[in-house]
């Protein structure tokens, strides 16, 4: 996105909140998705602290296409107990990517994915260490 468009988007989003989501966290996350991307979808994730640590608790299904490059941008509300993390699982149940390194604990707020297999994928979200939190995941198409 060029700078002018970003500024106008930042100004206009609160004004257009009447009929729209009006969620400042979504707006902020869309804007932080970076340049040369086209917004496709956002997921607003709000979870309490998990009683047990296991499967990611927020699941959505998303069709991704071969030869497309997608960017996943993960944002957190300041009061979140942990950072928003995600996994992408293909239709055979294989984990294609995860936004964190389970060995080092490092998390990535941005993940770029070059898709080579058209199909439906599960996008799973949770908060690091299964903490409570509020976050937004934005999927964009890299131009």
């Amino acid at each position, binding site marked *: *996105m*060029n700078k*002018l*468009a*970003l500024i*106008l*988007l930042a100004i*206009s989003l609160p*004004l*257009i909140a*009447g*009929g*729209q*989501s009006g969620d400042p966290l979504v707006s902020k996350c*869309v804007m932080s998705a970076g340049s040369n991307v*086209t*917004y*496709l*979808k*956002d997921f607003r994730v709000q979870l309490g602290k998990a009683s047990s640590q296991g499967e990611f608790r927020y*699941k959505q*299904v*998303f*069709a991704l*296409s*071969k*030869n*497309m490059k997608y960017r996943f941008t993960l944002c957190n509300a300041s009061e979140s107990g942990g950072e928003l993390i995600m996994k992408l699982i*293909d239709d055979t149940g294989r984990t*294609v*990517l995860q*936004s964190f390194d389970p060995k080092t604990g490092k998390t*990535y*707020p*941005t*993940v*770029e*994915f*070059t*898709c*080579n*297999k*058209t*199909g*439906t994928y599960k996008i799973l979200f949770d908060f690091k260490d299964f903490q409570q939190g509020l976050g937004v995941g934005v999927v964009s*198409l890299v*131009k």
Partner: protein
Amino acid sequence: MRILAFISVLALAVIFSGCHSSSGKNARFVFPDEDSVPLAQAEQLSEEALDDIARNISSPVEIADILQRMHVPFSSGYLASSIDASRQSTSFDKALKLGILGADLGYLNMYEKTGTSIDVLSSIKKLADGINVGQFFDFETLKRLSLNRTNLDSLLYMSLDSYNQIDKFLREKGRGQLSALMITGVWIEGQYLATQVLKQFPDTLLRNRVGEQKVILNDLIMLVAPYCTLGNEYSALCKDLQELREKYRDVRITYTIGEPQMVEKDGALVVVQTDQSKVEMTDEQLEAITVTTEKIRNRHITNN
């Protein structure tokens, strides 16, 4: 006292009728009976199963992105210009055409044809109002953004976000059949656009994209399946999709498995999938898919 109570209830109903966050009771007051799906039909495919079906089937933005990469020039001939929003009488027609025009809007916006997109936006607004989801389209702002081409990113965001919100809202309010129709409309128009372009501009990437729609079409059929018995319009649409599936029957898609490659770059994780899919589709199969897609799409846009 009863009259006063009645007026109060009526006033509250009117107040809440335009409200996005209206409760289930208010929603029942606003929406016509045909919008409600009988429980038995809805249960044919559980909510969990429906949740396993992607809602972003064939984003028009992605198709337009491929066309731009192919340097295919914009053509208004691909648009569903014959749709007259004010002549759509049933919720079925309104929802399906809302999807078709949504795909056209994505195509127009990606090609920066924002002048034309204002006309499409007007039709979209009418259709959305007709199924009580007009509140998700801030028409004036969208129009303003359309007139100012420097705001293209905002326009694309707002347009797509409006559709995403409508889909979510319809599902939450037990009107999943309208959401399914909208998604079907987007897919049919995207498929039409891709197959029509292929006729003039043969391209391997786009051809494979059309072939791979075999996978997506199966999902779409599952999405629509719970509503096939809702009436003649629904059953005809289900038959259309089955007919198209038949044309795809001998298209072969094979996969080879690979391990994803991951690197860190500028603080971001960059992942390249090394799985590969291969589409085998003959010219005859493509021709049959193109003809059937065109027939289905044209019948829906001319049946005003």
